[in-house]
């Protein structure tokens, strides 16, 4: 009893959650957009908010950032209430909005510098430029930057005040694969600096790659929250084991193991299971028993976030 208490409690006290949302409600007129949203973002993690368009992601984030007044519920961001402690909160937030322009004639270094002046304890200019790999473009006019460079400048401005919490709204929308990679690298660098990051995105591979935990928002509620693995498990998406179907199985002279769900599709046999280890053991035993040799091209695919997401959002069969 004492042991169970001893460990997690001091940890929690040391790192209170960066964001705590309880029963958050929001309505525009008669239309209820958020009907009781609950989640928590831990200090130092990358938290990703997913959901179809109109699910309330943007509204939620705007409430957290202090741009919108909520209708009900309680919200704490870095221990502050964004509704009435907005200016104190702003000093500790970095916000990267979608499609936000720059003053056209400003130069990179000059713009970062003036942004630094907006905050009480800014990071050094050199450091900001090097984090986003824009040191060489310091004297470049902003309008001459490429899309990827602009996004990295967005990051530099958001980091100017050395924020504890960074909001990224669809950071790689419209990017080519190379720019996306660099953007992801920049986000990972932010995390290594100890920043807490809240990310919204439509790209599930992005969430899967970057997020420590995800929440799926739909119809104004959080449907699921947890690590990618937990979310997949909760969604009940099976693990897929595939292998080259041996001749006897294809011809029907050997039946697949009865206790497993195996389908043969052309030259490939696919087994769907909730427990990959047990299924694998069964399969290998079955192959040995019927003298089917090694199962060629054997591959185990854990469910992707995309599978889980689609199942949850479409209310897929459980």
């Amino acid at each position, binding site marked *: 009893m004492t042991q169970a208490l001893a460990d997690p409690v001091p940890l929690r006290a040391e790192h209170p959650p960066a964001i705590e949302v309880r029963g958050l409600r929001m309505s525009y007129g008669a239309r209820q957009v958020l009907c009781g949203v609950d989640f928590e973002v831990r200090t130092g993690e990358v938290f990703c908010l997913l959901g179809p368009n109109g699910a309330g992601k943007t509204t939620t984030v705007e409430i957290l950032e202090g*741009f919108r007044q909520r209708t009900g519920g309680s919200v704490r961001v870095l221990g502050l209430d964004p509704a009435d402690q907005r200016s104190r909160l702003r000093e500790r937030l970095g916000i990267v909005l979608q499609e936000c322009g*720059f003053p*056209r*004639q400003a130069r990179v270094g000059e713009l970062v510098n003036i942004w630094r002046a*907006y*905050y*009480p304890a800014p990071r050094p200019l050199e450091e900001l430029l090097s984090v986003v790999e824009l040191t060489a473009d310091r004297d470049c006019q902003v309008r001459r930057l490429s899309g990827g460079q602009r996004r990295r400048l967005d990051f530099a401005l958001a980091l100017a005040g050395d924020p504890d919490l960074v909001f990224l709204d669809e950071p790689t929308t419209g990017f080519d694969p190379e720019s996306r990679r660099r953007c992801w690298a920049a986000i990972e660098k932010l995390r290594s600096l100890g920043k807490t990051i809240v990310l919204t995105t439509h790209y599930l591979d992005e969430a899967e790659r970057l997020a420590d935990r995800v929440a799926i928002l739909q119809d104004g509620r959080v449907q699921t929250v947890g690590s990618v693995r937990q979310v997949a498990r909760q969604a009940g998406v099976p693990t897929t084991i595939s292998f080259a179907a041996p001749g006897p199985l294809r011809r029907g002279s050997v039946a697949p193991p009865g206790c497993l769900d195996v389908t043969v599709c052309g030259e490939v046999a696919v087994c769907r299971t909730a427990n990959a280890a047990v299924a694998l053991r069964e399969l290998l035993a079955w192959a040995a028993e019927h003298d089917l040799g090694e199962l060629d091209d054997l591959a185990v695919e854990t469910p992707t976030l995309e599978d889980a997401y689609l199942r949850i959002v479409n209310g897929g069969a459980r």
Partner: protein
Amino acid sequence: MRLAVRQALLEQRSFWRSAEYALFTFALPLALLLLIGSTTAGGLLPGTHVKAQMIFVPSILAFGVIVAAYVNLGAKLATLRHDGVLKRIRTTPLPAGAYLTGVFASTAATTLAITACTAVIGWLAFGAAPRPAGLAEIAGGLVLGVVCFGSLGLALSSVARSAESASPIANASYLPVAIMSGIFDPTFSVPRWLSVAVGLLPVRALAQILQQGYTPVERAPLSDLLVLLCWAAVGCALAAWRFRWH
């Protein structure tokens, strides 16, 4: 305050860096000055013993104020909003007041530069120098003009639905009034009712205050002062009511 000053400096640097923007902001009043001056300077205004340049030089000063403070500021803020710069500013702890003060101060500096150029060229080319006693009127008129037309520019940027429409709206709203106010041709005559209406608008009011600084004119500048103040209040109220960050 320190932040507002820094913001103003950044805005000024950006203004001068954008060559065509700066050039045309300056070119328009100066070209008009030389054009009008070359045809009418030296002559007397009909029925008076007032030299034409003592009227048209201050009129162009007023025109410069309108272009810099109303048209430019309005279009600039509309563009900043369109580009999402205002939205981005709002994500920082910079108080809105400090930012707008900075932008406004930069506009005031630009206006001052334009009017100084106009006045110097008017003096060198056409010998139109302000009365020593009229300097206070000119200074006061310029300050009030910048505040009045700047706040109207702020209001304009908030009323315009898009960045593209801000410039046409600005031009369509001030040019006819400027023509009817006799900015380009002091002898331009309009029907009496129109003259009364124009008298209630800030363009002629500002021009007359500045003209007073060059040569005593018969009309009472007190009502002009009132008109400018009223429009400054209207501009501020409109801007406060409609100003949006995105």
